C-alpha cells in the first residue's frame, strides 16, 4: 500500500497552494538536503512532466529550494526561499525538461559544493506523499516517512549481514530493505528503512564495518 497513515490523507499542514506541487516538492528538496547533510553551494533543479509545465503557478520552485534550505512544509519562509537562498550564498539553477517521465511529478536535484556532489530523483505521488526513486544513479524506493539509513559499500560478501547484525543487536527492526550495485564487485548501496530511531552510536558502529564507505542517516 502506497499510503499507510491517516495523516497521509488528513495532512500535511502546509503552505499552499498544492500538496503535490508545493508540499511534496518541499519534502523532496528536504530529503536531498538531509542526504547532502549541509547547505550546498549550488543547486540544479530539473523539472519534468506536470512539475515542468506548472511549477510557477504552484510555487514548486520556491518549495524545492525551501526544502533544500531545510524548511518543513508549513514553514512560512517558503514563499521567500529564492531570496533566502541568495542571502545564504546558494546558487540556484532551474531547468525545464521536455522528456516524459514515468511519473508526472518528477524532479531531479543536483547539489554541489567543494566537498562533493549529490544527485537525487524524487516523485510526488499525491497529497504531499513522496518517493525517492534514484540516488547518485542508484534506483531505489524510499518514502522519507520512516527512519532510514543508506549505506554505500564495496560489493563484497558479508557486508550486508554485518550491517543487519548490528541493527539486530540494537533491537532495530527493518521494515523495508533494498540492495543494489552498479557493477559486480564495485560500488553498492543498501537502503534500509526501520521502525525505530537510529542513534549516532549505531551509525558509528556501521561505519566501522569493513568495506562500508559511507553511511547516511535519514529522517530522525
Amino acid at each position, binding site marked *: 500500500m502506497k499510503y499507510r497513515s*491517516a495523516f497521509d490523507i488528513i495532512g500535511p*499542514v502546509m*503552505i499552499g*497552494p498544492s*500538496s503535490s506541487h508545493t508540499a511534496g516538492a518541499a519534502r523532496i528538496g528536504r530529503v536531498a538536503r538531509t542526504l547532502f547533510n549541509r547547505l550546498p553551494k549550488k543547486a540544479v533543479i530539473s523539472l519534468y512532466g506536470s512539475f515542468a509545465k506548472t511549477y510557477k503557478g504552484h510555487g514548486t520552485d520556491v518549495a524545492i529550494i525551501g526544502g533544500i534550505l531545510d524548511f518543513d512544509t508549513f514553514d512560512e519562509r517558503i514563499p521567500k526561499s529564492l531570496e533566502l537562498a541568495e542571502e545564504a550564498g546558494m546558487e540556484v539553477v532551474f531547468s*525545464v525538461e521536455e522528456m516524459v517521465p514515468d511519473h508526472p*511529478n518528477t524532479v531531479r536535484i543536483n547539489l554541489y559544493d567543494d566537498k562533493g556532489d549529490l544527485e537525487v530523483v524524487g516523485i510526488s505521488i499525491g497529497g504531499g506523499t513522496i518517493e525517492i526513486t534514484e540516488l547518485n544513479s542508484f534506483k531505489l524506493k524510499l518514502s522519507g516517512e520512516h527512519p532510514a539509513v543508506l549505506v554505500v559499500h564495496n560489493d563484497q560478501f558479508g557486508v550486508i549481514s554485518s550491517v543487519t547484525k548490528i541493527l539486530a543487536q540494537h533491537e532495530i527492526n527493518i521494515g523495508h530493505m533494498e540492495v543494489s550495485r552498479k557493477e559486480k564487485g564495485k560500488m553498492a548501496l543498501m537502503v534500509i528503512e526501520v521502525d525505530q530511531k537510529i542513534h549516532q552510536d549505531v551509525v558509528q558502529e556501521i561505519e566501522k564495518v569493513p568495506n562500508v564507505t559511507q553511511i547516511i542517516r535519514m529522517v530522525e
Partner: protein
Amino acid sequence: MMFRNVAELVELAESKQVKIAEIMIQQEIEVSGLTREEIIAKMDRNLTVMEQAVERGLNGVTSVSGLTGGDAVLLQKYIKSGKALSGSILLDAVSKAVATNEVNAAMGTICATPTAGSAGVVPGTLFAVKEVLNPTRMEMIEFLFTSAAFGFVVANNASISGAAGGCQAEVGSASGMAAASIVELAGGTPRQAAEAMAITLKNMLGLVCDPVAGLVEVPCVKRNAMGASNAMTAADMALAGITSRIPCDEVIHAMYLIGQSMPSALRETAEGGLAATPTGRRLEAEIFGEKNNL
C-alpha cells in the same frame, strides 16, 4: 487488521460495533506505534489549522495573482440577507470550503484533505454542520478520522492526485470523504456513510484537472464549493435511506480506470480544458508575461 477497501472497513466497524473513525484510529495506533493520545493530539492540531484557515478566509483574502479571493465574504453576506434559495447550512458549507481554498491560493497555511487543491471540502462541511449538530471537540476529531479512512481506501486503490487521476481524484475524493463523515457525525450507520461516499463519488467521475495558468485557483476554488454542496446533498440522501446501486468500491475502481484513460492535457498540466480556453490563455499571459520565462 488493515482494511483494504470500503467493504472491509464497513465490515470491521459493524462487527466491532464502533464508528468508522475508531477503526481508523486503531489502525493508526498499530501502524505508527504512537499512543492513542498522541494520535488524537496530532489530529487536534490539524483541526486547529483548519479552523484558522476558515476564519482567515471568511475575513477576506486575495491571491498573489488576483484571480481568487473574497467570494467567501460575498456568500456570507448573501446568507445573512435571508434571500438565499438553497438552505443556509448548505451555503455555509460552500462558503467555508471557498474560504479555505482562497487561503490556500493565497499561499496561506492549510491542512491538505486529502490534497491542498481540495482542502476546502472536508473542513467546509464540518464547520457548517457543526452549527446544527453541536459536536464535541472529540466528535470533530472523529469526523476527520472518518474522512481519513475513506480517503485512505481511495488513495491506495485509485489516486488522490490530480496529475495522476484528474480533479475527480482530488475534489471528488474530498467530497466523498466529507459526505461519509457528515453521515457518521449525524448519527448514520457505517453502511450509510459508505453509501454517501458512493453517491458523491459517482457524481464526480470524469472531472478533469485543468487549472488556468497552472494555478490552484480557477476552477479549483469553485470546484471545492460544488464538492461541499455535493457532499451535503449526498449525505442527506444516504441519511434518508437512499442507497447506491453501484457499490462504493466499484465506484472507486471506476474512478481509477477513468483516471488511467484521461489524457495528460487534462491531468494538471494546464494544457487542456478551462486552462486552454481563450480567457484561460489570456489570464495566463497576463500573470506570467511571456509563457514560462525562466
